[in-house]
């Protein structure tokens, strides 16, 4: 077992445990903090996979913006943000077999995949800065992903304009 494998197992366990805590913890703020730990674990997994840019982008966007906005919104609400009621509602018996089925399906799919034993293809791993360059060029080249990229930016601009429109104080 290499050091990388040990790190991966530890990180995976931490992120799964934190993800479980997100849905089970009683305080809303604690849920948000566990979510941050989960997202951080995912970022570290990206790092292990040599996708440094994705790892850092994960931290910047998910932890630096989204999770902080979650916390901000939660802090603005009143009360102690503490839920004392039961954590199950009356339809838990519908959800339980469905999620078990989904989990089983995922496990079966991953189990039947042959890719575990194949070597990592040496596509662009020789030059790490080259990887970043390739990613950038793929995002803006016409035969790459320029259309989804531009669509996403249009969506974001629409959201920005919408937010300004909603927040604008028009006397």
């Amino acid at each position: 077992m290499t050091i990388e494998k040990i790190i991966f197992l530890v990180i995976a366990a931490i992120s799964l445990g934190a993800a479980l805590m997100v849905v089970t913890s009683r305080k809303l703020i604690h849920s948000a903090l566990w979510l941050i730990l989960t997202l951080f674990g995912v970022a570290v997994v990206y790092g292990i996979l040599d996708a440094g840019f994705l790892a850092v982008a994960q931290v910047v966007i998910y932890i630096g913006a989204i999770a902080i906005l979650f916390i901000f919104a939660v802090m603005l609400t009143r009360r102690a943000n503490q839920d004392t009621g039961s954590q199950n509602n009356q339809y838990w018996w519908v959800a339980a077999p469905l999620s078990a089925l989904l989990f089983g399906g995922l496990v079966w799919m991953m189990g039947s995949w042959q890719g575990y034993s194949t070597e990592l293809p040496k596509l662009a791993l020789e030059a790490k800065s080259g990887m970043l360059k390739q990613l950038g060029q793929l995002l803006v080249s016409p035969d790459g992903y320029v259309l989804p990229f531009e669509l996403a930016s249009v969506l974001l601009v629409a959201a920005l304009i919408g937010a300004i429109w909603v927040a604008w104080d028009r006397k």
Partner: protein
Amino acid sequence: MSWNGFLAFVKDPLTEFAKGITYRLDVWGLSPELVNVIVKLLGAFVACMLSFALVILTIWVERKLYARVQDRLGPNRVGPWGIFQTVPDMIKIFTKEYITPDGADKVTYNLAPILAVSAVMLIWAVVPFAPTFFGSDINVGALYIVAVGAIGTLGIILAGWSSNNKYALLGAFRAVAQMVSYEVPMVLALLVPVLLSGTMGINSLVKAQSVWFILLAPLAAFIFFISSQAEVGRAPFDLLEAESEIVTGFQVEYSGLKFGMFFVGEFLHAFTISALFSALFLGGWRGPWAEQVPILGLAYFVIKTSIVYFFVILLRIAAPRMRIDQMLNFNWKFLVPLGLLLVMVTAVVEKLVIHYYTLWGLEFGSTNYLILRAVTHLVVNGLICVGALWLSQSFGKREPPRFDASRAVAVPPQSSESTATD
């Protein structure tokens, strides 16, 4: 030790030291992978201890300078010029009682100061101190700085929320508004050196500065300086801990070493942004013979950082605190548009420079080419600067609308029972 070995050690002590440890551990029969991990851990440990030791000095520098500007003597009892004043202060803060307020969220309350300091120390992982002395030249270094800043913001929010104190919470609100906002112009300003050098690794950025980037992108340097001041949260951006309004903001409930951690975090952050500024815009360790004698590079880096740090302190002493609306307006209506314009213009100008100057027979990367490129960028920056000043002046003359009667933000609910108690 031979004379050559001695010379190599003097030139580059840290690399030679690491080599020595690696050799020793190899002799003990550890696997090379494990040796690598141990040496890296030791390096990280040294960097952390160095930063802590540095804070002892910078606190003294800051207090002394502060005092001299205000026509006081400042610390002058412990050691020559009071240089060891921080040591008794430290002992005092170590022995103080830890008070946890009633109703505080214990885990997050204790986690917050740790996050605040570690976020600053994480930046040190990418700061290149000398050609051979840096933690890691990761290919996303510039973005990494921003990511780590987010963790610092998190520490402040946690401190404000978990203290169970309304002033702390107010301070945290202000901190979030300020830090999330000023992250935007900071990223934009960081993009300009990245555009000019074509790399995001901080050490590669330093290597690319055959002409210092402050000459090529003075406006980006200005935006970076201002927005990193705001990220640190010191005057004129210290409204998140405004003593006269919200006591000390998010850190009001902290005592002893936990308060000290926030204090250390702030002072270390101020020094760290000076180091980053000198690495990104002042050529970092670059200087005569820095490549051959790495210890000289370290000296250049420390000198440049100290000069920037001097200005950081002077700004803190001289500038009055901003109001929150001024702070936000300055960011969103001045720095962000300027930054956006700067990124676009720099990208276009750089492409045109590469295209036309090579077309006109100048060799790419030659001295004449570099000088012409710097002059072009400088002229364009000057034009943008004049334009921005003219625009802000013509808009700034407009008075903001004033309301004669104060408007109620929220109207209390009308109920029959509450009238008696009011």
